[in-house]
């Protein structure tokens, strides 16, 4: 009896977790009139692609998605490469100022993003980077304290003997990093890349501030503008929301193992 109650509660939780996704997808395939007249849980019939076709042709949906892909892709690449380099220095080498710097990095993780926003905007304006990809990408592309911390912690679990053996064989720092540590660190790098991509893809505030033209408009800006214009044309904005979420769902399903494990790890330090 208690067991049944437990399963029922968990099942209810699971339904609530996926219901908004399923209802959105379901309604996006309905005919415009039906989106308003039929309840969201009623299956789409007849199934139509009209809503997707309409957002795709009337708005630069393809452009939004492409711009987000460039933005999130570049930030992810930078984050993985530069965080790994810094993590190696912090985790495996000794140099004057290491601990002070590392604590400095950690301390800034506490600082809310809005605090840095006005000066960051001014810096980008000074460099003439408003409305450019560089302006979008630069603040997070050099590796964030979070990323560096994540990789450093992982590096410290890898036995030093492996590294010493390579050193005795005459390997330099870069060789050790690339040939010895990186192959062993694939899981954590996959985790970092996935989380960075998802976070960047979802970011609204920084693009909202640093871009305003069509040439770099990312998907978060694109669909929030769409909502502003057509707040009750649900067939359109739901189709757009579904398109914006699609890449995330694909990535999540591909990397769910890494994501679940990395979240579990965050609390156990």
């Amino acid at each position, binding site marked *: 009896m208690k067991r049944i109650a437990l399963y029922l509660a968990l099942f209810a939780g699971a339904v609530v977790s996926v219901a908004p*996704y399923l209802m959105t997808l379901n309604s996006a395939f309905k005919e415009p009139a039906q989106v308003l007249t039929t309840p969201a849980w009623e299956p789409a019939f007849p199934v139509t692609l009209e809503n997707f076709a309409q957002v795709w042709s009337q708005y630069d949906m393809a452009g939004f998605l492409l711009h987000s892909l460039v933005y999130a892709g570049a930030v992810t690449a930078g984050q993985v490469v530069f965080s790994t380099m810094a993590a190696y220095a912090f985790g495996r080498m000794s140099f004057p100022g290491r601990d002070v710097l590392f604590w400095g990095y950690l301390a800034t993780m506490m600082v*809310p993003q*809005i605090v840095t926003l*006005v000066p960051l905007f001014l810096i980008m304006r000074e460099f003439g980077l408003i409305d450019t990809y560089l302006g979008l990408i630069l603040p997070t592309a050099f590796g964030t304290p979070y990323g560096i911390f994540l990789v450093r912690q992982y590096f410290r679990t890898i036995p030093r003997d492996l590294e010493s053996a390579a050193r005795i064989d005459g390997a330099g720092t870069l060789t050790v990093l690339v040939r010895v540590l990186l192959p062993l660190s694939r899981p954590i790098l996959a985790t970092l890349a996935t989380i960075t991509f998802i976070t960047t893809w979802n970011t609204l505030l920084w693009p909202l501030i640093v871009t305003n033209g069509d040439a770099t408009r990312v998907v978060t800006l694109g669909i929030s503008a769409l909502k502003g214009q057509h707040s009750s044309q*649900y067939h359109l904005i*739901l189709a757009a929301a579904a398109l914006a979420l699609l890449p995330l769902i694909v990535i999540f399903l591909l990397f769910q193992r890494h994501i679940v494990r990395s*979240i579990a790890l965050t609390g156990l330090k």
Partner: protein
Amino acid sequence: MIDNITYDRSVQGHRRVERRLAARVRAVAEAYALLAPSLVGFLLFLVAPIFGVAALSLFDWNLMGAPSFVGLDNYRELAADPEVWRAVLNTIYYVVLNIPAQTVLALLLALALNRRIRGGKVLRVVFVLPWMAMPVALGIIWSWVFDPRYGVVNQALGMVGIDGPNWLTDPAWAMPVIASVNVWQYTGYTMLILLAGLQAIPHTLYEAAAIDGTTPMQRFFMITLPLLRPSLFFVLVTNTIGSFQIFDTVFVMTQGGPGGATDVLNFHIYQQGFQLFRSGYASALAMVLFALILLVTAAQFLYFRKRTVYDFS
């Protein structure tokens, strides 16, 4: 002969020291070379802006022309501005609606999943699905779910004869709706962290306590809760810091409305800084938000340090 040997040794020693020194210098140079990109980013895009915002908060500047130094005027203005106080209270109200609900729900789910049940792994993934959703897309979807006429919630309420409120355009309901969207998004994430904490508690403790004839309720309060404290502390601190910065859902769902009922600090700062271009004033507001977060975090640290009294090694 003897002299020769000592001479040789000292030269060799000297060379060894030199070689070691060169190797050390090389290692330090290598370390800084590896660190260089992240250090540039750190100093230019994180440290400089933090000092910049403190300095800017003492100026009046509309982003054009020259900034003029006004001392603490911005702080005086914001302290006297009822909209700022409303934004502070709205932010706190949001955090209070969000954090306890999310943490309790997450703890219950984690306790359920910590038992050996079928499909536990799949459920874990399902519960984390909301976490990765784009808040902007979520804002759109939930605006639709809570639409007074066409939304699922009022349609369902209508089926049982209840006339649902106007949710997002009702000042009393707008904030609870926004909070519930975030509870939906982050409960699974919090649950996973707590679940990891639960799984780290040694089983032998429960077995020993069971032999001593304790009830499950006693075991929860005497073993589970105290040993879960570090994980609970972590999720409370990080989720609270995150909650104080609520922006995206407000931006998409209400734009601070109706009548300022969801005008939270982060949104207020955005409007002042980037819609009205009052960068000095917005910087002062940002300092206030920062101070608020530091204060709450410090309080949480003190509270948990006082009460975390366990040792089992």
